[in-house]
């Protein structure tokens, strides 16, 4: 409780615990992660591959995503942010690079951490690969990957994908 100009202010933390039903699409994706694989889904209409398969529906065609497609493990950075801002619950040392990574074979990027190189050396088009945690630490999460690191392969020339999701 604090008082400003004689007026009372109270601090009242609130919290909520949720259950989350994964559904069949996210289940195959999460089961893939528990086996060290990146499993996405293909739209039966436009044939684009979603990783993660999100809601199980192609946002463009409104068709239910169908077959499992294994993507990656390597990918290309489409854009990134160098984070210098400390925040509550942050688990990663500053500064760090949060990058949009387009896994090979996927048509939409996902966000992950880039390490094992200086932040200033990260660039759009850079090729990266995952560094997995020890299997004993794996769960149904992209956190199974400690981070991505540069492969040393030549950069991919990015056209329309540059800065795209």
């Amino acid at each position: 409780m604090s008082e400003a100009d004689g007026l009372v202010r109270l601090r009242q933390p609130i919290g909520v615990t949720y259950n989350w039903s994964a559904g069949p699409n996210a289940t195959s994706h999460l089961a893939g992660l528990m086996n060290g694989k990146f499993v996405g889904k293909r739209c039966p209409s436009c044939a684009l591959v979603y990783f993660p398969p999100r809601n199980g529906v192609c946002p463009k065609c409104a068709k239910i995503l169908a077959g499992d497609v294994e993507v990656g493990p390597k990918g290309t950075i489409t854009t990134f942010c160098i984070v210098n801002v400390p925040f509550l619950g942050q688990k990663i040392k500053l500064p760090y690079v949060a990058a949009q990574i387009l896994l090979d074979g996927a048509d939409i990027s996902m966000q992950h951490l880039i390490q094992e190189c200086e932040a200033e050396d990260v660039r759009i088009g850079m090729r990266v690969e995952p560094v997995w945690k020890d299997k004993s630490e794996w769960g149904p999460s992209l956190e199974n990957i400690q981070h991505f690191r540069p492969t040393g392969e030549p950069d991919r020339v990015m056209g329309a994908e540059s800065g795209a999701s």
Partner: protein
Amino acid sequence: MADLCAVVGVGQTKHAACRADVSIAGLVREAVDRALTDANITIADVDAIVIGKAPDSLEGVAMPELWLADALAAHGKPVFRVHTAGSVGGSTAIVAAQHVMAGIHGTVLTIGFEKQSDGNAMWALSVPIPFGMPVHAGAGGYFSPIVRGYIGRSGAPKHIGAMVAVKDRTNACKNPYAHLHEPDWTLEKALETPMLWDPIRFIETCPSSDGAIALVLMSEERADKHAGPKAWVHATSMRSEPTAFAGREQVSPVAGEMCAADLWRKGGIKNPAEEIDVVEMYVPFAWFEPMWLENLGFAPRNEGWRWVEDGVTEMGGSLPINPSGGVLSSNPIGASGMLRFGEAAMQVMGKAGEHQIDGAKKAVGHAYGGGSQFFAMWLVSSTKP
């Protein structure tokens, strides 16, 4: 055909980092009382209330519109809540205008608010997402890669963001309600501020604010009998798209382009840069000014930054943007979109005081929200369509 609608009153609070002197209800009431005074009516003259704010988690009050009914004297009247994330202030004003244009209500009060100091808005939306990688870092972390994409493809020099920020902070000094009054910024000093979410610098980010705004809207029949200046609504438009889909254009989202094209078509605007006198644009991160200049169809693709550099968007330029100081100087999130709409109305009503653009006849209010996916815009004028 829809009926006509006019803004006849605008009221806003003094925006500040912490309005410890009022509750949420008191903050909202302050804006409402000023809007009613500006319109020279009383709360009894209001037929319906349309209220919006950003996610309830920002202050931890679920469905605050129910709690606020007392402060809004809403008993016996319809109250309608709108929610479209950061664009909500704009969408709320549009829904209110639609209540009038549909011929349902003659006088509608609409309100947008946020009391950021009551919660932790900066991180309320950055909770770790289950099964994902917790590298998110607030709104800045979300928008920074998009800004990087724009800089990369347009070849914009790195100082453009800081130029926008210095302009908006300077403009804000002419607006008594603005949160930040910082008259001493120079480009050189701005460029010395730290990189928070590289390539976004500290100066290029909006503050966290407490604030509210209210507008009084009237039908043509009532507005014609109403003394005082009016802002006639010539066109409104809303568009949205998913946060993420394969091949999504994030720098210039299709939904934003469609929304603007729809606004120009409805408003009979052939050449926006020539025909619009002033724009209140939703720019929470400075680089979005050149990006939205392009998205809205004012500037050609990849050329928006040149307009900034040439001073086109300054108060004395040919297309002034955010003479109020904009979101970069005051960001009560749920109010920010309606502040753009209300400030646009004030310009064509000739009520903008020190930040008035002389002779402004047509003005645009613009808002966006979520992951650049919800868009709301209106075009207002000093004369009827």
